[in-house]
């Protein structure tokens, strides 16, 4: 079973939910797909044992063969190639490595170079098989790193995925193929606005989902009202408490602090398992 934890709005508590869920369950694979700023390991504390590089294939044009016909640049949807009279330029940071330029080149002038854009780290803690992606600073494409992370999924295991915020390509890539998606939100107008967007995404992908309301008590009841109206299960409400914020700020997971929370997250896990098995 693959459970992904997404949100729409950033900073609602995805990592809080995903790490606590993992720690309460044990024996899971954990993927931190928020490759622009992975932070789950602050709470999981896995010792990193190894890493591998993630690279992209970038075209290199053989200027002896190229006759500057411009077909490659015409084809490239990301404007990563420029052909001007008697010259051709490649802009690696814009290239999505689709390989189209090679297909349309009549002179067979396209060769490929590897360009490293990030790494995947691997470690273990308390029975959790931990992976996180790290996109290099300045790189704009998170998706290839997330794809590489997801290739680590062991289908025989239970998998928890910490998803980046938003509803764009990295989010779609992270949650695709999940058996269940937890959407974490806060009871504020921003929380509700972005929750609606996230709900559109998971519905479009046909992934069963439920909502966790974090910092319950800070805003209004519009998120709950919305969930009721849309027939979306509210799996858990985490109250706004200074103690919870304190624990978070020192990198301590809720389930490691109190047995009650441990039980609560265990219940959510069982509930999801039940729903997925139907």
């Amino acid at each position: 079973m693959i459970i992904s934890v997404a949100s729409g709005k950033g900073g609602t508590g995805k990592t809080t939910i995903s790490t606590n869920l993992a720690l309460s369950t044990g024996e899971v694979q954990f993927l931190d797909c928020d490759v622009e700023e992975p932070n789950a390991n602050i709470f999981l504390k896995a010792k990193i044992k190894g890493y591998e590089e993630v690279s992209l294939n970038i075209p290199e044009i053989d200027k002896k063969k190229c006759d500057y016909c411009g077909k490659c640049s015409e084809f490239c949807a990301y404007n990563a190639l420029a052909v001007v009279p008697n010259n051709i330029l490649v802009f690696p940071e814009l290239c999505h490595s689709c390989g189209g330029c090679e297909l349309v080149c009549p002179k067979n002038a396209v060769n490929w170079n590897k360009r490293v854009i990030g790494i995947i780290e691997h470690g273990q803690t308390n029975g959790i098989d931990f992976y996180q992606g790290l996109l290099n600073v300045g790189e704009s494409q998170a998706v290839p790193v997330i794809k590489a992370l997801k290739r680590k999924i062991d289908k025989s295991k239970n998998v928890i995925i910490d998803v980046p915020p938003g509803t764009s390509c990295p989010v779609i890539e992270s949650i695709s193929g999940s058996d269940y998606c937890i959407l974490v939100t806060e009871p504020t107008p921003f929380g509700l606005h972005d929750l609606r967007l996230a709900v559109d995404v998971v519905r479009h992908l046909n992934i069963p989902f439920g909502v966790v309301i974090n910092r319950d008590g800070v805003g209004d009841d519009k998120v709950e009202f919305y969930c009721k109206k849309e027939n979306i299960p509210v799996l858990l409400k985490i109250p706004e408490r200074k103690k919870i914020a304190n624990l978070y700020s020192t990198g301590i997971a809720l389930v490691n602090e109190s047995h009650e929370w441990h039980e609560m997250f265990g219940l959510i896990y069982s509930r999801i398992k039940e729903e997925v098995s139907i």
Partner: protein
Amino acid sequence: MKICVTSTGENLDADVDPRFGRCKYFLIIDIDSMNVEYFSNDSMMASGGAGIKAAEMIAKKGASVVITGNVGPNAFQTLTAAGIKVITGVTGNINQVIGNFKKGELKEIDAPSVESHFGMGGRRG
């Protein structure tokens, strides 16, 4: 000699558009005959590489100078590769700008004037 001016409108009465890759129109002006062609910018809304596409198009049209407000690094690199001279920091009515250019009052630059995505406004892609 042909020059390209980024423009807010379709003729010489318009102002210089301060953005290069995301300007509204490109005017290609033959300085000798004062013949003017205009092109609306297809790449205005592109998520990336708008300046590269614009530079490519201008090279194809045979312009040897670009006059605009600002040029980013990718566009500058493409224009330079095409042997096109770049003049930035220019504002105001294009008729007047052409006059100033003819008098030799406009200076070309040897480096991009802004960072990538400058012309996209507050939001970066």
